[in-house]
């Protein structure tokens, strides 16, 4: 087993293990904290996939910003009060069954499909390639995303603002 395989399995274990905590923990704060290793595990996966720019952005946005935001909202809403409230709704069993079946399907598809491969090599300096792509062929998407970002920024402020 090569080093890369070891790294993959370790990262997958970290990702899925903490993911399970995120999903099942009766304490929402634990769930939110468990998000951090999940995201970091995914970051490691990105690194394995030679996508270091995506990886650092993942850390910056997900682990650094979104998790903090989630923790922040949890503490602003429930604080320490809601820990003992029921966290799972009544469709737990069927939800688990459906999720498991879905996983089975997706894995079956992933394993059985003969994935094609296009010729080409990954650029060695990906941030530059990504920048070229963003400001070149994907400019419209880039601009659209920027607009969405702006709109959601304004929207979030308006929604969360206290009524005067």
């Amino acid at each position, binding site marked *: 087993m090569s080093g890369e395989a070891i790294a993959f399995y370790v990262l997958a274990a970290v990702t899925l293990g903490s993911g399970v905590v995120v999903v099942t923990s009766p304490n929402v704060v634990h769930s939110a904290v468990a998000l951090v290793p999940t995201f970091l595990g995914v970051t490691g996966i990105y690194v394995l996939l030679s996508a270091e720019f995506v990886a650092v952005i993942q850390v910056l*946005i997900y682990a650094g910003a979104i998790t903090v935001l989630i923790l922040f909202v949890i503490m602003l809403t429930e604080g320490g009060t809601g820990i003992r409230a029921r966290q799972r709704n009544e469709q737990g069993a069927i939800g688990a069954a459906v999720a498991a079946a879905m996983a089975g399907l997706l894995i079956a598809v992933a394993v059985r499909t003969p994935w094609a491969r296009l010729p080409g090599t990954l650029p060695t300096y990906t941030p530059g390639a990504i920048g070229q792509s963003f400001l070149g062929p994907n400019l419209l998407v880039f601009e659209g995303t920027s607009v*969405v970002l702006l709109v959601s920024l304004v929207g979030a402020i308006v929604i969360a603002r206290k009524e005067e």
Partner: protein
Amino acid sequence: MPALTHYLVLSALLFCLGLFAVVTRRNGVAILMGIELMLNAANVNLVAFNKFAAPGAMQGQVFALIVITLAACEAAVGLALVLAAYRSLETVYVDEINVMKW
């Protein structure tokens, strides 16, 4: 050497974890966490395909970045909604946020 399939399987499992959270959690914030997991799974797929299926093109990583951006938007708006709902209804449990159903 992990192949494309390894990453796809990992992503499938992560996606279904997120699905499970979205479907079974009562807390709005926890549902958002599930959504984030699903988005992450999708991103893993994108980046993996970028490397294994079309290494020459950067579309996979580019779109992963866009997804991350949109995920940030979604988290911001979603959490703002949860906050607003908590402020007016004093609950973050989505099955109790049902005044519009009457």
